[in-house]
């Protein structure tokens, strides 16, 4: 069987051949691997596929918003056939389908694409390398995490085809809506969603235990806490967020599952009446309980999405400015501060639930406080650029774009953190613009940067710079054309929940505002264009495996951290000799040093 060993420049061919008969078979090498690098790649490939799938769901929704009740191009007939008339009659997106796609877009992007990519893929591949460990602390648990994630994804995908279609109550799945949708079907989309979530949560919990243990226990000799690369710190805090924030959602998920299957009333209040009459339940439950448990996870989840990207960006900025990170220690304390504060801000998602002024003051205060460490990190990264002779390669471009994009996303969040302004902005397109700026041109750019940056280590070849720059320029432009108009729409009061994009609402003479609706077309066309600008990336990703420029050394970016002091690609066990660390992570351009970088493992 053909393997990637021939790409290894640091291994002679004879050496590779001698080991040929030790090569494990296809199943144990690619499917049931316990090697953190292969598991990282599995996570990465699966997550990228889900990322693209989630993007396609959104494209179909955007088409509906720009051109309401027109058939979906290309896939319309297929959807009508596959999902039935209730969902896509004549290829036109029906309200139920819009709701299902919306809920699944959110779920897939957060739980199946970004977290697995940021934490599962980069965390798995890079963290053990950067701390000088031969593998994760629990390799088989690591494999189990990936497989649970995979099956969670399969359950989510299968849910499109159960009677009544996939979950359609938003990624937040608020009860009683989520519990009552499709209640007449024994196995419905929401039930599938919950089963999928329990699998995904279990996967994340096992992953978090593994990551934290690895970072605590398997640091190489001399790798003290303050010599850890910032990426590792970010993963460490992310691990704790997942470990402690996810179980309450697991509890909530179990309770909603019991509500759905055994017809209990955890989240269903007394006296619940729908268009079908009184709902035959005991009642006595609390819809607010679901919201509390959900946001207790889902706010820390925001930091799970952003911190690993910050870690990636920090590594790339230090490497390409050829300077130490400015304020490394402040950044470390800031990331720890974020980790702590992330647990006490959740109810700022719930200002409209009628909470008292005292409670809302508490959550407004903590929400403002958490912006401080975020700003510390961003400021430190900006100042790190000062006076550097910057190398503008593709990873650096993405990393640089991350800074203002995350800045816009973060700053537009402040009005949402204040009760008074949130009451106006809540549930509008402004909210969508805000969090997408954080996650799409923010996190995803950070992760793209990481793909371009570590690709040479994983494969022994560079990705094409030209295609990378096309990918970057196009994505940067389109992302802004998509999300900036949403602020305008939201400020003008456009609700995020209208499946025809507000045509009925605005068109019916109720404050008709054609300009706002025209923006839907701008956004949709930009989204399609964004899709086309991903093609160079996809092509580049596969083409470079075979035809990319080969790396000249094991350390092609002249980096300081331990991940670059391994053979390329790193073999099972990672390091040729056990690494010993003598210095901090970012000793670039040290005056008097022989080269402009001094690896952590260099003695003296």
């Amino acid at each position: 069987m053909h393997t990637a060993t021939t790409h290894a420049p640091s291994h002679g061919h004879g050496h590779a051949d001698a080991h040929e008969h030790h090569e494990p078979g296809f199943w144990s090498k690619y499917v049931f691997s316990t090697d953190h690098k292969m598991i990282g790649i599995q996570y990465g490939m699966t997550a990228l596929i889900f990322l693209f799938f989630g993007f396609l769901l959104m494209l179909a929704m955007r088409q509906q918003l720009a051109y309401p009740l027109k058939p979906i191009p290309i896939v319309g007939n297929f959807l009508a056939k596959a999902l039935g008339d209730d969902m896509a009659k004549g290829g036109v997106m029906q309200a139920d389908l819009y709701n299902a796609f919306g809920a699944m877009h959110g779920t897939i992007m957060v739980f199946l694409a970004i977290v697995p990519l940021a934490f599962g893929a980069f965390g798995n591949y890079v963290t053990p390398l950067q701390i000088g460990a031969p593998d994760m602390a629990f390799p088989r648990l690591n494999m189990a995490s990936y497989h649970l994630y995979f099956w969670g994804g399969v359950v989510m995908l299968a849910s499109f085809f159960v009677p009544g279609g996939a979950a359609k109550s938003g990624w937040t799945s608020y009860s009683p809506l989520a519990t009552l949708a499709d209640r007449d079907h024994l196995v419905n989309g929401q039930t599938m969603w919950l089963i999928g979530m329990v699998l995904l949560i279990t996967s994340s919990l096992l992953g978090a235990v593994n990551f934290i243990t690895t970072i605590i226990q398997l640091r190489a000799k001399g790798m003290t806490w303050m010599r850890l690369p910032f990426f590792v710190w970010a993963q460490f805090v992310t691990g704790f967020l997942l470990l402690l924030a996810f179980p309450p959602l697991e509890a909530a998920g179990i309770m909603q599952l019991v509500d759905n299957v055994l017809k209990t009333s955890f989240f269903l209040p007394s006296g619940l009446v729908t268009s079908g009459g009184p709902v035959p339940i005991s009642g006595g439950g609390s819809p607010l309980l679901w919201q509390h448990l959900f946001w207790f996870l889902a706010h820390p989840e925001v930091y799970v999405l952003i911190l690993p990207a910050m870690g990636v960006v920090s590594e790339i900025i230090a490497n390409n400015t050829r300077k130490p990170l400015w304020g490394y220690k402040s950044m470390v304390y800031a990331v720890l501060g974020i980790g702590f504060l992330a647990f006490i801000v959740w109810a700022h998602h719930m200002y409209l639930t009628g909470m008292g002024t005292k409670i809302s003051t508490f959550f407004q205060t903590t929400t403002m406080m958490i912006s401080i460490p975020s700003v510390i990190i961003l400021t430190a990264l900006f100042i790190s650029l000062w006076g550097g002779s910057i190398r503008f390669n593709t990873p650096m471009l993405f990393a640089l774009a991350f800074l203002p994009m995350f800045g816009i996303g973060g700053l537009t969040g402040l009005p949402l953190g204040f009760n008074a302004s949130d009451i106006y902005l809540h549930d509008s397109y402004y909210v969508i613009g805000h969090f997408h700026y954080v996650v799409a041109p923010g996190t995803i750019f950070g992760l793209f940067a990481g793909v371009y940056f570590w690709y040479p280590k994983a494969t022994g070849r560079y990705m094409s710079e030209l295609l990378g720059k096309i990918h970057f320029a196009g994505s940067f432009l389109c992302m802004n054309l998509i999300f900036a108009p949403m602020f305008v729409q939201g400020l003008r009061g456009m609700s995020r929940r209208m499946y025809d994009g507000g045509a009925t609402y605005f068109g019916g003479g109720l404050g008709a505002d054609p300009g706002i609706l025209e923006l839907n077309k701008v956004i949709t066309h930009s989204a399609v264009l964004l899709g086309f600008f991903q093609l160079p990336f996809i092509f580049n990703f596969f083409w470079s495996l075979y035809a990319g420029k080969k790396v000249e050394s094991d350390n092609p970016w002249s980096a300081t951290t331990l991940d670059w002091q391994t053979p390329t690609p790193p073999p099972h066990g990672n390091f040729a000799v056990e690494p010993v660390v003598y210095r901090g992570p970012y000793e670039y351009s040290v005056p008097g040093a022989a080269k402009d970088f001094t690896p952590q493992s260099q003695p003296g």
Partner: protein
Amino acid sequence: MEIPYTVKPRPDTGLYNAKVGIWLFLASEVMLFGALFSSYILLRVGAPDGFWPDVATGWPHGLLNIPIGTFNTAVLIISSVTVVMAWAALKQGDFSKFRRFMLVTLGCALGFLCIKTYEYNEKFTHYVIRMKDGTAVTGHLDINGHSPRFWTLATITDKKMTSVKVHVDVPNQFRYPVGMKRPEVSHEAGEHGGGEHAAREIKTADITFLQAFVPATGTFFAIYFTMTFLHGLHVFGGAMVLGYFTFFGRKMYESDPERMTNRIEVGGLFWHFVDLVWIFLFPVMYLL
């Protein structure tokens, strides 16, 4: 390739990997059960004002079997002691002593689960019946001498039964919150000695609602069954792991006794946590 500190502790942390891992895992378990206990509090505080015998709306008291629950608590605490004794025996290098203590632990686990199953079955055959006149009773149905599981009003109408015989519960002091006055009870079925189970024929036409004590019956039962079932799964899982080492651990013990002892220590930590959850569950569900 050898992963460091799988058996020997790392000098600066003083812990081997699995011990760090299990404590982290237990932290997440604390958050899991913590969320469920918080939910219990919120549901109870927000429960409507109804009370027994209308268990379907209010927050019922005293419907769980306290003596049996107490016994089960003792069973789990004993198992916690024996799991430590088993670990200590391994530390002393006495494998057969380890096995003896571990068998007691596993016996306790099995006993606990059997008792829990019995309790569940008691609930599934115990009914709340609401009448047209607004009153409600709890009790056991009497269908040819035994109470069936999971019946509802629909079951009775489907069977075209015009009436159903019920052994009605007589309220005892546990069934009311502290300070609430206990209503007068008419001992209409004096021929049975006026005890707990006065038999009564109730006309099907008079019944508006009939349901066993299943999760759907009310939020109390919902959280009771969810939490105790989840706890039961933990008992089962822990027993499987400890059982594996009891029956198949000798080989590992002979080749690497320290590794085996560590495994038991980690398994024991989990087992203590499972006991601890029950020590909270018992008073919260049965007594308060």
